[in-house]
Structure formats: structure tokens, C-alpha cells
């Protein structure tokens, strides 16, 4: 056990995890000393839990990681299903949607790429309407099918790319593998969220999507976009990328992360809630935290997959 932990901190990903923990510790001290508000304290406390769970869940062992991302997917989907309006007759359809998580992450775990990539977009897409025919509630069929399928695509299909990515082997003998790629992606995606907030707070003036997300600014977006592009280059030792490939990866992550964030805001606006849930004090629900990842994970995955696999 101790050996696994030591091993964890001894390679490339280990040094980055070390940096993350150090940054977290510094932020905690700064918040408690300079800005001891309830919200910031809650938020940093939740960050400790997120980082802790991420290290234990995703970084130690590939099999554990499948369960970790599978559970994450389940929690996100459950939050979404709790938010959306559903008919009583939809309960069985929702039940199937939950069940679909298990094969999806199993396909990722055994690296069955073909099934992994069509299970939800093809099979579930065809199955869910069929199940509703058997129930026979015609009123609201289209709305319900669209809502459930969209949820599956976002919170199961989208997030499961993290699980598949972690199983990727190193491209060459002395190169890094899937674990490092996942760390790279998650780190940059989360930093993008934070930097958008910080840049926006300090120099933000012009609203970028006032109708959907009034707190987001052009300055915040551009600031984070440039910072993340540079950080993508800085952390490129976690990837097999050449320098220009890393720069493009940074742009993909920053741009897509922004869109993912705003898409979930759009869902919350549509339903009329402020936070998606309450699992993470200071952040809201799971959806409020994984929103950007839903967009960055599949896009970054296919970028890497196209270039190297």
C-alpha cells in the first residue's frame, strides 16, 4: 500500500500531483488568512475532497478508475434526472438509462473500442424508444426521448471517454500513457474554470453570453484561453505531444471547457434552478463541477486518438 503511494509520486504524474497538492495547500492558507468567507472555505474544502477522491479513484489503479468514473457518471446522471421533468411512465426508461452505465464502462475497461463508441449513440438510441412503445404513453414521447438520450450522451458517453483514455498504452517504450493524459486533461480543464473566474474577477468587463451566464466575461475567456494554451505547453511532459500539438490541445481544452460550462448553465436556466445539486458545498452539485469535462473529454480524447492511436 505504502509502496503504491510512494510509486505514485515518483513519476511524471506524481510530480504534477505534488504540485497540485502544494497549490491547494497555499490556496487554503490564503483563503483562511485573507478571505475567510463561508463560500470560499466550503469551496476549498470541497476541492480537497475532489483532489483526494481523484487521486485514490483514478490515479492508483486502472480497474478502480473504471468504477470511479462509472460512479461519477452515475452521480451526474442522477442529478440530471432529478432536475428534469419526468412522467411517471418514464421510470422504466430511466432505469434502463442507469443500467447502460455498467456496460459502457465495462467496454472502456476491456478496451473494446467499437462497442464503446456505438453503445449509447446507436444501441441505446434505438432501444429507449422501443421500451417506450411497450409502455405506450404517447403524450410527451419525443420530449422524453430527447431528454433521456441527451443525458446519456452527456453524462455517460461523454464522461466515459476519461475511462477509456486511462486504459491507453504508452505510444513508445519511454513515453507516458493514459493515466498521464487523463491527469493532463482534468488538470487543464479545472484550471481553465478557475482561471476564467480569476481573470473575469480582476479585469472582466464585457459579458460574453449575457443571456445564459451573466458572470462570464470576454476578458475572463481570453485570459484563460491564453493561460491554458501556455500551461498546456508547460505540462506537455504528461503527453506524447510535440510543442505545437500541445498548444492546439490547450486551445481545444480551453474553448471546449467554456462551452461545456455554459451548456450546463443553459440546462439550469431552462429548468430554473441555480445549482444542479448539493453534493459539493461551495460548488453546487456534481454537474456544476464536471460540466466542462463533458465537453473537453471526448474532444481531447479523439484529438489524441487521431494523432497517436
Amino acid at each position, binding site marked *: 500500500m505504502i509502496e503504491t503511494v510512494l510509486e505514485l509520486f515518483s513519476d511524471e504524474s506524481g510530480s504534477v500531483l505534488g504540485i497540485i497538492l502544494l497549490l491547494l495547500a497555499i490556496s487554503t492558507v490564503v483563503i483562511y488568512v485573507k478571505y475567510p468567507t463561508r463560500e470560499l472555505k466550503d469551496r476549498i474544502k470541497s476541492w480537497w475532497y475532489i483532489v483526494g477522491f481523484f487521486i485514490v479513484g483514478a490515479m492508483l489503479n486502472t480497474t478502480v478508475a473504471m468504477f470511479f468514473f462509472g460512479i461519477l457518471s452515475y452521480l451526474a446522471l442522477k442529478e440530471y434526472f*432529478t432536475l428534469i421533468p419526468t412522467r411517471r411512465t418514464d421510470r422504466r426508461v430511466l*432505469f434502463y438509462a442507469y443500467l447502460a452505465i455498467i456496460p459502457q464502462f465495462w467496454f472502456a475497461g476491456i478496451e473494446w473500442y467499437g462497442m464503446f463508441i456505438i453503445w449509447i449513440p446507436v444501441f441505446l438510441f434505438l432501444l429507449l424508444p422501443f421500451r417506450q412503445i411497450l409502455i405506450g404513453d404517447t403524450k410527451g414521447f419525443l420530449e422524453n426521448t430527447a431528454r433521456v438520450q441527451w443525458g446519456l450522451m452527456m453524462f455517460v458517453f461523454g464522461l466515459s471517454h476519461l475511462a477509456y483514455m486511462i486504459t491507453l498504452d504508452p505510444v513508445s517504450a519511454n513515453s507516458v500513457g493514459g493515466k498521464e493524459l487523463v491527469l493532463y486533461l482534468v488538470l487543464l480543464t479545472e484550471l481553465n474554470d478557475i482561471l476564467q473566474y480569476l481573470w473575469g474577477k480582476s479585469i472582466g468587463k464585457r459579458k460574453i453570453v449575457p443571456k445564459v451566464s451573466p458572470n462570464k466575461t470576454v476578458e475572463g475567456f481570453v485570459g484563460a484561453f491564453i493561460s491554458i494554451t501556455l500551461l498546456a505547453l508547460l505540462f506537455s511532459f504528461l503527453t506524447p505531444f510535440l510543442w505545437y500539438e500541445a498548444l492546439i490541445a490547450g486551445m481545444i481544452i480551453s474553448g471546449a471547457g467554456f462551452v461545456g460550462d455554459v451548456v450546463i448553465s443553459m440546462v439550469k436556466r431552462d429548468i430554473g*434552478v441555480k445549482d444542479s445539486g448539493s*453534493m459539493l458545498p461551495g460548488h453546487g452539485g456534481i454537474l456544476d463541477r464536471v460540466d466542462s469535462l463533458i465537453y473537453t473529454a471526448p474532444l481531447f480524447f479523439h484529438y489524441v486518438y487521431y494523432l497517436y492511436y
Partner: protein
Amino acid sequence: MLKKLFFLCIIRPIVLLVTGVHVRGQNHLPKEGASIVVSNHNSHLDTMVLMSLYPLRRLPKVRPVAAFDYFMKNRVVAWFSQHVIGIIPLKRKVSKDEGHPFAPVHKALDVGETIILFPEGSRGEPEEMSPFKTGVAHLSKVYPDVPVIPIYIHGAGKALPKGEALFVPFIIDVVIGEALYNRDEDHKTFTKRLETAVNKLEQKYKEIV
């Protein structure tokens, strides 16, 4: 013992992990002593959710009041309800010669137990509240110092509605309100007050989300 084990191994994991419960106003729940917990009722899950609000060591003293005709109808269910869940069976239709129907409830309150009651009397349609029956008012008049805790539960009726056996996970919200006491009010007034309290919690919940 059986009760603690059943809740620890089966009910808590389902209620807290698979479904997920978000509690607001936990501080309104008395830490010890007799109390009467009252909530809206849409699902069998309601009882389990309310019992999960208490630490394991208090569980033996938390007793849901449940319909005799439903939970005592066959021997397996009756044994399970009484020995594992620890219900107090209450006859919904009273015949004159069997003594006071609330007698076992009085006995429980006398020894400092917490009673869970659903004054709607039945689970009814999902997420809809029916008018409260006056039982709690009668009960709290006899026990003017025992707090009556109003609670609003949202989402349990979606996860496991009446007449369905398939459990589908949704996050359940619980809002706990301030204690009420019946200081010699007549039954209608107190019942109205209690119903208003639960309705207000529902309003509060809808405002938060």
C-alpha cells in the same frame, strides 16, 4: 440488533449512496427524548429516509406508526415490520371494544421514543399532499411538552411511488421545520397549523431550488 444491522447494511447504503438525500434544517431535530415526527407521505421510502436522519444508536428508539391492515396482513411482512423496522401498528378502522387505538403510541412516548407519523393516512398520488387527519392533534394534546417536528420530503414519490415495485434513483430532498407544541388547542386548529407548517416547508424548498 437486527434493526441496526439491517439499516447499516441495506437501508443506509440505498438511501444515502444510491439515492442520495439532501437534508436542510437538521438542527431542528431534537437530539434526544420523545418527539413526534410528522411528514407528507408518498412512498415507502419516506419512512426509511426519516429513519436515516438519526444516528444508528438512536434507531431502536425511532418507531414509525404504520397501518395495521397493510403491514400486519401476512406473517412474513408482520414479523419484518415489527422486529426489523420496529413499527407501531395502528388500526385505521377502530372498533369500540379494543381499547384506545393510540395506546401503544402513548406507551412509546412515555418511554421517550421518537414516533414517526404520516397524517395524510395514505401514500396517495406521487408528490401530492392530501388533507391531514387529526390524530397528531389528539396525541399532542395528551403530550403538550413533546415536540411535534414538521418535515417535508420531496422526490421519494418519484423514486418509489405507490403501486410500483421498481426503485429508480432520484435525489431526495428533506426539509425539517421548527418544533410545534399543542398547548390546549382544539383538534382542527392544531391540525391546520401543522398542515400549514408542512406546506410552508414545501414553499421554502421550492424557493431554494
